[in-house]
C-alpha cells in the first residue's frame, strides 16, 4: 500500500515530463527571416529589390569577362597571365577553361522572378512604387538574359523563382529565338510599367530611359544578328528618341564621366553602384594597374606617372594592347582619360634611358581610403555616349545620316581639334566601320566592346588573337564549362567545343 502511494506521488512528476510537445519544437528564427514569413509588405519588396541589385553587382567581373576581355583590348602584363584571363584574350577557350558559370546570373534572375511572383499580391501605399519595382525586375531579367544569350546562345529559360528542387529543375536550353522572345516581352513590360521618365537619385537602378537604352541595344542586336532588319532598327531608334526627353546630357569633359567624386552624373542612365564599406572593388579595374611588387623604383619615373601610380595597391595583369593604343589620336582627350603608357628611365629619371614598361587603363582609377587606392568606381551599364552611338548605328542601318550623333561625341573628344576629325557621311559600310571604331574610342574598358564587335560581325577581322582563327565560328560563343555540364545533364554543349 505504502509503495503504491509512493508511485502515485511520482506519477505527476513523470507526466509533467512526458507531455507530447511538438508545439515546443516549432521555433521561429530571430536573426533571419524564414521563407514562409516573407512577402507581406512593401518593405519586403524593397529589400529583395536592392538585394537583386547587390547580387547583380556581384556579377560585374564575370560580365566584364564575357563582354570585353575577348576583344583582346587587354593582354598579359608584367605580373603574368592568370589562368582565368589567358583563354579569354587569347581566344583559346574550351570546356575546361576556368570560366565563370552562369550561376550568378541566374541568381539575379531568381531575385527578379521572386519580385514578379510576389509583388503583385502586396498592397502598396502608392501604385507607382509597385509598378516601378515590377518594371525594374522585368528590365533586370531582360538584361541578364541578354547578357547570357550573347555569351552562350540559347540558355535554359527560368521565369519562376526556384522554391524547391524537383525533376523539373533540370531544364534544356531554349533556342536563341525563344530567349529573345522573352527578353523583348520583358523589356516592353518594363517600359510600360515605369510610371515616369525620371532617374532615381544616384542613377544606380533601372529607370525608364535606361530600359529604353536596353531595348535599343536588344533590337540593334536582333536587327543585325537575327535578321530583324528595318523593323528592329526602327524600334531601336524610337526607344532612343524617347530617352532624349529625359534629364540626360553629354558632360563637357570626357574624363569627368568616370570620376569617383562625380558618380551618378547627368551622362549616366544606369551604373552599378560601388561603395567603400558596402561592396568589394569594381571587379576588373584593379587588375590593370601596377602591383606594389612590380612597381618600378620611384626614382625611375616621371612625376605625372608617379601621381597616376600612387596608392600602393592593384595588380599588374591586364596590359592595354598596342592596336588599341595606336587607334587613339593624341588630340583625342579620350586617350589620356582611358589609358596610360608607363615608361621607366633606367637607371634614373630624367637622364636614364626611356623604356616602355606596360600600359594600364585609367578610365576607372578609384579613390583613396586611408592612403590606399581602392577601385570603388561605378560600373557603367548605359550612359548618354551609348545612346548617341546606338542612334548613329540605327540611323545608318536604316540608311539615315548618322553625322549629328557621332559629331556630338567627337566635338567633346577633340575640342579645338574637332574640325579635322569631323565625321563625314559615307557609304553604309564606311559609316559602320567608323561607328564601330567610335564605339571602341568612346566605350573601351566599359565592358561591352566584344559584343559590339560581334554585333557588327567584325570579331575575326579586328581581334588580333582571332585573326588566325578565321572560320572557327564556334569561337563567337563561349563553351559551356564542365562544372555546368556535370550537374545539368539536359544542357548540351555548344557545337565546336
Amino acid at each position: 500500500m505504502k509503495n503504491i502511494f509512493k508511485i502515485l506521488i511520482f506519477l505527476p512528476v513523470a507526466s509533467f515530463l512526458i507531455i507530447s510537445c511538438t508545439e515546443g519544437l516549432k521555433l521561429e528564427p530571430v536573426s533571419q527571416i524564414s521563407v514562409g514569413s516573407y512577402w507581406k509588405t512593401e518593405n519586403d519588396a524593397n529589400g529583395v529589390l536592392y538585394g537583386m541589385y547587390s547580387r547583380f553587382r556581384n556579377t560585374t567581373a564575370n560580365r566584364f569577362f564575357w563582354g570585353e576581355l575577348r576583344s583582346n583590348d587587354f593582354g598579359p602584363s608584367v605580373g603574368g597571365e592568370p589562368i582565368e584571363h589567358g583563354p579569354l584574350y587569347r581566344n583559346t577557350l574550351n570546356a575546361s577553361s576556368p570560366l565563370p558559370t552562369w550561376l550568378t546570373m541566374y541568381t539575379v534572375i531568381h531575385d527578379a522572378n521572386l519580385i514578379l511572383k510576389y509583388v503583385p499580391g502586396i498592397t502598396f501605399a502608392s501604385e507607382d512604387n509597385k509598378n516601378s519595382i515590377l518594371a525594374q525586375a522585368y528590365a533586370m531579367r531582360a538584361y541578364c538574359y541578354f547578357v547570357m544569350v550573347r555569351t552562350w546562345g540559347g540558355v535554359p529559360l527560368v521565369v519562376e523563382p526556384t522554391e524547391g528542387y524537383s525533376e523539373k529543375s533540370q531544364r534544356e536550353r531554349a533556342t536563341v529565338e525563344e530567349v529573345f522572345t522573352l527578353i523583348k516581352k520583358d523589356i516592353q513590360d518594363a517600359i510600360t510599367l515605369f510610371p515616369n521618365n525620371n532617374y532615381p537619385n544616384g542613377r544606380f537602378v533601372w529607370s525608364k530611359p535606361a530600359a529604353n537604352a536596353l531595348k535599343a541595344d536588344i533590337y540593334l542586336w536582333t536587327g543585325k544578328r537575327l535578321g530583324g532588319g528595318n523593323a528592329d532598327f526602327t524600334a531601336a531608334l524610337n526607344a532612343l528618341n524617347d530617352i532624349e526627353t529625359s534629364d540626360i546630357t553629354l558632360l563637357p569633359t570626357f574624363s569627368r564621366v568616370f570620376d569617383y567624386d562625380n558618380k551618378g552624373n547627368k551622362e549616366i542612365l544606369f551604373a552599378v553602384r560601388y561603395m567603400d564599406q558596402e561592396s568589394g572593388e569594381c571587379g576588373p579595374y584593379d587588375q590593370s594597374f601596377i602591383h606594389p611588387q612590380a612597381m618600378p623604383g620611384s626614382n625611375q619615373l616621371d612625376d605625372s606617372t608617379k601621381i597616376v601610380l600612387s596608392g600602393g595597391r592593384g595588380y599588374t595583369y591586364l596590359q592595354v594592347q598596342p592596336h588599341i593604343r595606336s587607334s587613339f589620336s593624341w588630340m583625342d582627350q579620350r586617350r589620356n582619360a582611358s589609358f596610360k603608357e608607363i615608361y621607366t628611365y633606367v637607371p634614373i629619371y630624367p637622364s636614364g634611358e626611356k623604356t616602355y614598361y606596360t600600359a594600364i587603363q585609367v578610365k576607372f582609377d578609384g579613390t583613396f581610403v586611408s592612403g590606399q587606392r581602392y577601385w570603388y568606381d561605378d560600373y557603367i551599364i548605359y550612359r548618354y555616349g551609348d545612346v548617341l552611338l546606338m542612334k548613329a548605328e540605327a540611323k545608318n542601318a536604316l540608311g539615315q545620316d548618322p553625322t549629328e550623333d557621332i559629331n556630338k561625341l567627337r566635338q567633346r573628344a577633340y575640342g579645338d581639334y574637332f574640325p579635322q576629325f569631323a565625321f563625314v557621311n559615307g557609304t553604309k559600310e564606311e559609316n559602320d566601320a567608323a561607328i564601330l571604331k567610335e564605339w571602341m574610342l568612346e566605350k573601351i574598358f566599359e565592358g561591352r566592346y566584344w559584343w559590339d564587335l560581334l554585333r557588327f560581325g567584325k570579331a575575326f577581322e579586328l581581334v588580333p588573337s582571332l585573326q588566325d582563327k578565321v572560320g572557327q565560328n564556334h569561337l563567337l560563343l563561349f563553351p559551356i564549362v564542365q562544372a555546368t555540364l556535370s550537374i545539368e545533364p539536359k544542357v548540351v554543349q555548344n557545337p565546336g567545343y
Partner: protein
Amino acid sequence: MPGSSPRIIIRGGTSINNPDGAAPLYIVDGVIRTNINNIDQSDIESIQVLKDAAATSIYGARASNGVVIIETKSGQSGKTQINYKYDFTISNNVEKYDFLDARNYIYFQRLGIYRSATWGNKPAQLAMLTGPTSAGTGNDLTNRTAYSVQYLSTENQYKLNEGWETMPDPLDSTKTIIFSNFDFQDVTYRTGITQNHTITASGGTDRATFSAGLGYMNSDGIVITTFYRRLTGHLNGEVKLNERLSFFGRVLYKNSHDNNPSAESTFGRSQGLPPTAKYKFEDGTYAPGQSSSLANNEYYLNTRVDKRIEDDLTMVAGAQLKILPGLTFDPQVSWWQTTIDSRNFQKAFWNGPTSYVVTRNASGAYSKYLQKQADAVFTYSKAFLNAHNLEAKLGFSYFDGYSTSLSASGRDAATDLIPTLNAAATPVSVSGAESEQVIYGYFGRINYNYKQKYLLSVNARYDGASNLGDNFKWGFFPGISVGWNLHKERFWSMLPENLLKLKLRGSYGVNGNISGLGAYTAQGTYAVGGRYGGFAVIQNTVMANNELQWEQSNTLDFGLDLGVFNNRINLMFDVYRRVTDNLLASMALPHSTGFSSTLTNLGSLENMGVEIEINASILPVTSELQWDASFNISTVSNKILKLPYNGVERNRIGGVEVWDEKARAYVWKGGLQEGGTMGDYYTYKYLGVYATDEEAANAPIDDLTPIADKKCYGGDINLADLDGDGRITTKDQVYAGNIYPDLTGGISSSLMYKNFSLFIRTDFTVGQTIFNYMRGSLIGQFQGDNGLSTELLRSWRKQGDVTDIPQFVYADQQVRNKIYRANGGNTFIYERGDFLAVREITLSYDLPKNLLQKVKISGLRINVTGNNLHYFTKFTGLNPEFGGRDYGRYPIPRNIIFGLNMTL
C-alpha cells in the same frame, strides 16, 4: 595549434559531404557536447567509446557517428588524498620544407622567368628580371625593395663583408649578382615550452564524498607569438541523505586565453618567403617581406594581435532516489555555457616595402552558447529465481541549445597603442545573431539475461528536433542486441578450466543524425546585412525545405570476445555493415536554379568494416617482469547506394568524364554516383619527363596548355594520352587513389619491472592518398615568388637529362601547365599517405614507498615522455597524418615531456 583537441572519427562517419567532419557525440558527466576541447585530461576518470548501434541507439538522435562517454573524477570515501601533477614540455617543429638556398633560387627563378616569357611570348614578363622582385636585379639597399638581389656595384660591394654572396647572372655571365641568403622558417618557428600544473584533493566518508581540483597550463607555441594559457577547475560532491536518497553536484570550469594568427598565410605561404628576401634593412629595422601574405613572419606576426578568451562552465545537479527495492529514479539537470571573446588588431604596418598601411583594422566579437539539459530516468532491476536478470529503464530528455553573438569592426585608429575598438575612428560593421535548437527525447531499455548465459537487450528512443521540417520532426530509433556466453554452458566444461572463454554477440540498431543541419535551415532564409547604394538589402540565400527529416543509419554488427589462458590473451572481433538513409547533405543544384546547392536528405550510404583488437599479457602473472602488448586494426569501406534522381546516369553529382580503357569509351567517374565510393581522385597520368626534344616530338598536343604553343619539348612532363586521340584533354584522367584510408590501427606495449615502467604506443594508417599540392607548388612556382624545392636540383636542365623532375619554369600554370592542371595536378603529386607513427614512449619510475614514507608522501612518480617522435612514411610532404589535400598546414610538433606526479 596549442590547445586544440584531436580529431576522432568512429567507423568512417556517416557524412557524404564531409566524412572527416563526422564527429561522434560526446557525453561528459551526462552533458552532451560537440567537442572535448575544454576538458583537462587529468580530470578524466574514464572514457568509453560506443560504436555498435544497439548500444548507441538509446542516445538516439545524433548518435549515428558513435558516442564517447566521459566521466570526470569524483571522490572516494576514505582518507583525503592530495595529488599534484606537473608536466614540463619542450616542443619543436621537425617538419620544415627543404628550400633551395638563395644561390640556387636565383639560378632557377631567373631561368624560369626567362623561359616563361619566351615560351609564352610574354615579353612584358621579362621586366621581372630587372625589377625589384625575388630574383630580379632591380633591388637596392634602400628600404624600398623587399629583396636583396642586385648587380654588384661599388655602392653595394661592402655587403660582401657582411655575409652577402655573389654569383654570375645565369642569363648573362658577364654580370655579377650580389645577394643575401636567409631561411625564413628559422624565424617563424621556435622551441615551444609548456608547463602544466594540476592539484586535486579528494576524499570523503560513507555519507559524502568530494573531489576538487585546480589546474594551470601555460604554453608557448612553436610558432612565434602564439601562446595558450588555461586555467581549469572542478568541484564534485555527493551526499547520501539516507539509504534511499542521494544528491550530487558537479562544476567544471575552464578559462583559456590564446593568440593564434591566421594559419593559412603563415604556414601555407609566408614560411616560403624566398631566401633572397631581406631580413633586416640597412638601418636595422625588420624588412616586411613581399606582402602580408608572403611576409617576414618575425616582422608581420608582431604587428598583429589575435586574442581569444574562452570560458567554459558546466554545472550538473542530480539525485538518485530508490523508490522501491529495485526501482530507482535518476533526475539530472545541467547547464553548460561557453563564451568566446575575441579581438583582432592590425597595427600600422608595411604591407611589402612600398605600401605602408595605416588602416589599422580592428574587430571584436563575443559569442555565447548556452545549453540546458534535463534528464529523468526510471530504472527497475530484478533477479528472479536465481536465473533471470532483468533491468528496465524509462526516461525523458530535454535539450535546449541557444547561441548568441555580437561582433563589430572598425578602422582608422590614430595609434597602435590601443588595440580595442574604442580607438577606431571609422566604424565598419556591426553584426549580431541569435539561434536556438530544442530536442525532446523519450527512451527506454530492457536488459535481460539468463544466468549470464544468454543476453538480450532491447532499446528504443523517440526524438523530436526543432530544426527539422514541420512534418518530420520526430524520429524513432530502436535497437536490439543479443549475446551468448558459450563458456557458461555446461558442455564448455569439457575444456580445461580457464583455457578459453568465448562470447558471441550480434546487434542491430537505428540511429539518427542532424549534426549538419542549421537551426532554421529547413525554413529557408532571407538574409540581411548588406547594402546597395545605401539601401539595406535582403536576399533569398537558402531555399526552404520542409521535407527535411532525420538522417537514419541502420547498423548490423556481429562480434565475438575470446579469452585464452585465463584471459591472458583477449581478442575482440567485430564486423559491421551500416546503411545510412536520408543522408543530410548539401546537394549541388543545376546552376539555372540560381542556387548552387540545397540541404536535403540525399540518399543512402553503406559503410562496412572489420575491427580487431588483441590484448595480451605475455609473461605469467607471477613474473617479476610484466609485459603487456596490444594490437588493434580496423578497416572501413564505403559505397554509395542511392542518390536523389537528377536525370544523370547513376544520379551522379559532379565527377569527370574520362576515357575508360576497359569499356573503350568515355565514362563519368568520381564525384558521387550510385555504386561508387566517396573520395576517389581522378587526375592526369604522369609517365616521366621527356629526356630530349626528339623524344617529345611525337607527344600529344596538350589542350590544357594555356600558351599558344601546345606542343611538348624535352624537360616537359610526359602525360599519358589515354584515349589515344593525339591530344591531352580533360578526358585523359585516371584514378589516382582515394582520400580515405583502408586500414587504421595501432600497436602498443608496456613493460613493468619493479618500480620502472616503459610504455610505447604507435599507430598506423594505410591506403590513403594525399594530394601533395605543396610539392607541386614548390617545383612549379604556382605562387610566383615562393621558396623553391631542393627537388629542383635534380630537375631536367639539358637535352638528354633523365630525371623525374621537369625543367623549371616560372608559374607553371601560366605556361605549359603540366603540374598545376586546374588545381588537380597529375599523378606525380598524388602520393600514398601510409605511415606508422611512434606516438608515445614513456619511461616512468615510482619512488620506493619506504623512502617516501619518511617524508610523509604516499606516492611519487616521475616520468619522461616523447610524443610524435617519428613517422615511418614514404610521403614526401611534411606530415601524412592529416591526409586529404595538403595546401600547407600547422606542423605537428615533437614533444618531450618531463612529468611528476605526487600524492600526499
